[in-house]
């Protein structure tokens, strides 16, 4: 774990309300694994403000990239960070995705939940795993992030939007279900990896558990400490009240208990 002071290299809007932030943090970058997160001290908030957790879009060549949506006071203040600004970044934190997969790797993401799936896709590809399909959902085409980057990695990308402005009109589970039917008809193996809003995660976890496939589900919770000390970011699991920051954020689908 590093409590790094990272220099901001780039900060760009990548769609209405979504931003990409790039830090220079060599030790942190080298230590991060897909699905792990960093805890960021937002410079323009009062010094006593809590840190904000962000999953990692990519970590390579000494850099750490996060994608975020402006949703509240913290992310709004983060909008003001400029290249050259120093930012406190604590990490790597949490348990990430396994960078291995038996059969097809089916990545399911919604909104900024695509971020850790991009890091995972790149890592799977780099480790020689070719069969990666990403299912990306959002309300409109504007909410579909990292599609070009995923395609550039050679990932087969399937899209779904609520309004039909990109991909199929409907939920991200629609194209996923089509693919699941094909894979099962062919008797082929697959694993599911998901990050996004809770209803989507539950839907993916149910499909993993229903098919007997492995499911790896990344939970998004408000956090305080990020290191397992405060017990604020709880997800119910078969083991009881588990902390998303250290026992997650990625959980086995079979471990999650949905309320």
């Amino acid at each position, binding site marked *: 774990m590093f409590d790094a002071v990272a220099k901001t290299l780039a900060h760009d809007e990548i769609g209405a309300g979504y931003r990409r932030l790039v830090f220079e943090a060599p030790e942190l970058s080298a230590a991060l694994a897909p699905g792990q997160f960093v805890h960021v001290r937002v410079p323009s908030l009062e010094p006593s403000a809590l*840190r904000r957790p962000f999953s990692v879009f990519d970590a390579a060549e000494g850099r750490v990239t996060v994608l975020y949506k402006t949703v509240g006071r913290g992310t709004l203040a983060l909008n003001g960070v400029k290249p050259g600004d120093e930012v406190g970044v604590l990490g790597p934190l949490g348990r990430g995705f396994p960078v291995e997969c038996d059969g097809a790797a089916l990545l399911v993401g919604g909104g900024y939940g695509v971020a850790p799936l991009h890091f995972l896709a790149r890592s799977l590809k780099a480790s020689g795993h070719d069969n990666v399909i990403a299912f990306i959902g959002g309300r409109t085409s504007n909410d579909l992030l990292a599609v070009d980057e995923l395609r550039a990695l050679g990932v087969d990308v399937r899209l779904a939007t609520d309004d039909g402005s990109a991909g199929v009109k409907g939920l991200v589970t629609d194209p996923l279900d089509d693919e699941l039917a094909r894979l099962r008809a062919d008797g082929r193996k697959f694993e599911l990896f998901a990050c996004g809003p809770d209803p989507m995660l539950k839907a993916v976890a149910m499909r993993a558990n229903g098919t007997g496939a492995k499911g790896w589900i990344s939970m998004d*919770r408000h956090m305080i400490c990020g290191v397992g000390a*405060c017990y604020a970011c709880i997800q119910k699991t078969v083991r009881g009240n588990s902390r998303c920051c250290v026992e997650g954020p990625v959980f086995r689908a079979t471990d999650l208990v949905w309320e």
Partner: protein
Amino acid sequence: MVSTKVNLGGLEMATPVATASGTFGYGFEYAGALDYSCLGAVTAKGIRLAPWPGNAMPRHAEVYGGLVNAIGLQGTGLDHFLDITVPHYTAQVKDAPPMIVNIWGGSVDEYAEVARRLTEAAATPECAAIKAIECNVSCPNVKEGGHTFGQDPSVLNRLVSAVRAKTALPLIVKLAPNVPDVRPYVKACEDGGADALSMINTIPAMVIDIERRRPVLANVSGGLSGRGIHPVAVKLVYDAHKATKLPILAMGGVYEAKDAIEFLLAGATAVAVGTATFSDPSTARRVLDGIEEYCTRHGFASVADLAGAAH
């Protein structure tokens, strides 16, 4: 060279800076983010006999100047704590500082039993890090750890006496801030045989989601910690110091050395960093450096000489 050693009711601390219960896990979670040599003690999260699930989510809400939480004392229970957690702390943390164990329970007997077993364990090499007990009688988020024992001086006295009878370890009692006059509680601890006081616990508080028209926390209310409660804590420490010779471990909004020095001058022997660790894990280091700098600048040879100097 300023001497930073202090003695908190028999607990020898190499520095006057500790961590506050509930903000520092079981001591090992921040290994890697903080150099522990600045700490005179760590305080482990509240523990009772059996595992305890804590409250439903959401458990916290950030507010200007602090944090409202209702974690609800989630914990793994005493067996796991002694078998796994304490040895893990000693193994993970280099030169592990002495551990103060925060305890709570559903009855006087439970507090006493936890104290007895901690005392027994502290004599073994695996759990030798355990050096003191802090009785939580003031958590605003669970009935048993709060109202029942901390809001009535006679009940408090009975609890402290019962725990005292079971332990020779330094016994600290953590008091509630929301009492009309802290002095009867101080006396109840003194008469019950406490070695030190810690203060303050969080202040009962609530946040309402105006869009949903419901309280934010699942527990409805919680406890306020952080910057905003510091002046409240300073007054209570000042009042308590006037009323007793018991040493005081002061906590509540310590973000920088100035906050800690105020506590020491008000009468505290040592201070604990709490919520500030969440935004800056190195807070304890900055606080200790600042205390030493202050002592040098004002000609104090020892931090211990600061205790109560504002009276």
